[in-house]
């Protein structure tokens, strides 16, 4: 549906986007994930028409999008700051886009009422934005963006201004709404948990490039680049060379993993902390070391293990509380399927 081909944008010496190509499907919830300054917001602004790329094309349903003025595009954006009009009531804010379509007053009233009901703000229709809480403002911004029934809805860090509890609620609500209205959503976020919980597919951005496009589970379990392995979820990364059994790690011997790389290729092995097994000193283990630190997070405990021959401690996540104390000698192991090899 949305086809982005070879889009590049530079600001002075800074490359915001370098030859980005993506295809986003009809009805999909698509996330652009990356650290701040990686170019994802620039891409969003190009789609909305506030920026123009130096090169590349964007088509929506086969029609060129870049040639259209911002106010003519069937694309709506929910701003990170919400950008609600402070001098208008909630209902006027939501009606603003419909008024531009020259719809009848009755239809505007009906559609505004309908969308406010959908986001649960019927009671707030007469309020000004500054009289609302952060979560309510976010819902007004969302209502204002979806009321025009755009082909494509862009969301710029939609949940970043909300506190943790409201954010979780809004995540569910966003997903429910996307199913209900059937609009294609493109969300920009730096929060990998948010991207994974919301999106059908995720494009990981780094320094203006797309590192990997995949479904959340595939992205998490099979990172294809060192950046993705490090950015999406916590990983223990081991450097070395690919071999048939996994990775011949520098100074640690052979570590188990699934490899489809030619033997001898410089590679990283990524193992998720929750995939590591912690055993006593006598137990079977790929690596041995001494517990350096234990932190308890309630549902999970993080144990960091100092392994001789490795500079950084290895991080292990175990469910619940753990009996292990700092100074305990332990053995670490994981199933070969849990070690993902990433070419370096």
């Amino acid at each position, binding site marked *: 549906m949305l086809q982005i081909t070879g889009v590049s944008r530079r600001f002075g010496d800074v490359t915001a986007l370098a030859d980005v190509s993506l295809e986003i499907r009809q009805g999909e919830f698509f996330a652009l994930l990356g650290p701040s300054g990686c170019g994802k917001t620039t891409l969003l602004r190009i789609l*909305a028409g506030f920026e123009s790329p130096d090169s590349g094309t964007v088509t929506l349903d086969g029609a060129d999008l870049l040639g259209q003025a911002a*106010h003519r595009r069937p694309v709506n*954006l929910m*701003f990170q700051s919400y950008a609600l*009009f402070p*001098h208008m009531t909630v209902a006027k804010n939501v009606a*603003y*886009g419909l008024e531009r*379509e020259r719809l009848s007053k009755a239809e505007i009233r009906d559609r505004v009422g309908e969308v406010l009901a959908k986001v649960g703000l019927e009671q707030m229709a007469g309020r000004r934005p500054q009289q609302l809480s952060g979560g309510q403002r976010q819902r007004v911004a969302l209502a204002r963006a979806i009321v025009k029934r755009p082909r494509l809805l862009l969301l710029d860090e939609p949940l970043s201004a909300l506190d943790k509890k409201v954010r979780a609620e809004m995540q569910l609500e966003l997903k429910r709404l996307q199913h209900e209205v059937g609009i294609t959503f493109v969300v920009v976020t730096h929060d990998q948990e948010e991207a994974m919980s919301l999106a059908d597919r995720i494009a990981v951005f780094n320094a203006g490039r797309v590192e990997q496009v995949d479904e959340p589970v595939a992205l998490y379990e099979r990172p294809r680049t060192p950046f993705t392995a490090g950015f999406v979820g916590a990983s223990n990364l081991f450097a070395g060379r690919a071999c048939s059994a996994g990775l011949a790690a520098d100074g640690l011997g052979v570590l188990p993993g699934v490899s489809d790389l030619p033997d001898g290729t410089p590679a990283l092995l990524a193992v998720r902390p929750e995939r590591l097994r912690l055993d006593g000193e006598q137990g079977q283990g790929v690596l041995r070391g001494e517990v350096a630190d234990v932190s308890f997070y309630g549902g999970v405990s993080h144990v960091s293990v100092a392994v001789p021959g490795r500079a950084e401690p290895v991080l292990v996540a175990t469910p619940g509380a753990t009996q292990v104390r700092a100074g305990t000698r332990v053995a670490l192991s994981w199933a070969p399927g849990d070690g993902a090899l990433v070419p370096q």
Partner: protein
Amino acid sequence: MTRSTVSGATAAPRSRRSRAPGRTAAGRSAVGRLVFLGPGLAYLIVLLLVPLALVLSYTIFRRGRFGGVVYEATGENFTRLLDPLYLDVIVGSLKLASIATVIALLVGYPTAYLIAQLPRKWKTIALVAIVLPFWTNFLVRIYAWIVLLSGPGLVNSTLGDLGLGPFEFLYNQGTIVTGLVYSYLPLMVLPLYAAIEKLDPQLREASANLGARPARTFVSVTLPLTLPGVVTGCLFVFVPSFGNFIIPELLGGGRSIMVGNLIRDQFLKARDWPFGSTLALALLAVLVVLLLLQAWSARRA
């Protein structure tokens, strides 16, 4: 967290201690307030309130033969104010000041808007350029207009080279309006700039994103949100224009006078202080009404 509890712990006993000799603490703070407020307060009382009270009190007395006042109450100053001769001057001044204000707004708004869009470095340069005329003496600048616009002046000689004119630019109401706009345009641009600069550019983007053409965005978003700046700028231009007497004197050629000239003439030439005071009161009344309107609109915004 730790820091706030520590400071809270030290603050508590201190406030308890200060409760006993509370009167001296309160007294000390009153002295402190007086030191800071005193100069400003003295200035306001001695140089504004007292003269104002004097001028206002003159309005109900008779004129002295050689200036000053004779303390005999009378209402004739006010009946004289309604004389068409003087009403015309007041209405004429209102008209000229209003035209100057509207022109200043029409010129000033685009200027302020463009400055607000400039890169930061150029913003500063542009703002300095706006304020720059204030560094030159006001009278000199007005005389410069006479030099420019006079019969053999620069404008006419340039037009003459093109085969046009010469025109009589000086000494009419248009020249007065030109002088007023020229003098007070910076006072329009600065508050407008402040209002436009404060406006979140994302609001304009949001408007475009929702399907509004640039003109619609201006009418529905930019203008309403910068209206307090518009009102302030208009007031800043209107107030000094309405009471102005130097510009009409120099550029108006003394033929069309404004209420400012009339007041000056009553005090200095006709030596009718009571009537001059009454005119001043009329001028003040108009401005107070305008200021109240401005305060009302600012509270609504």
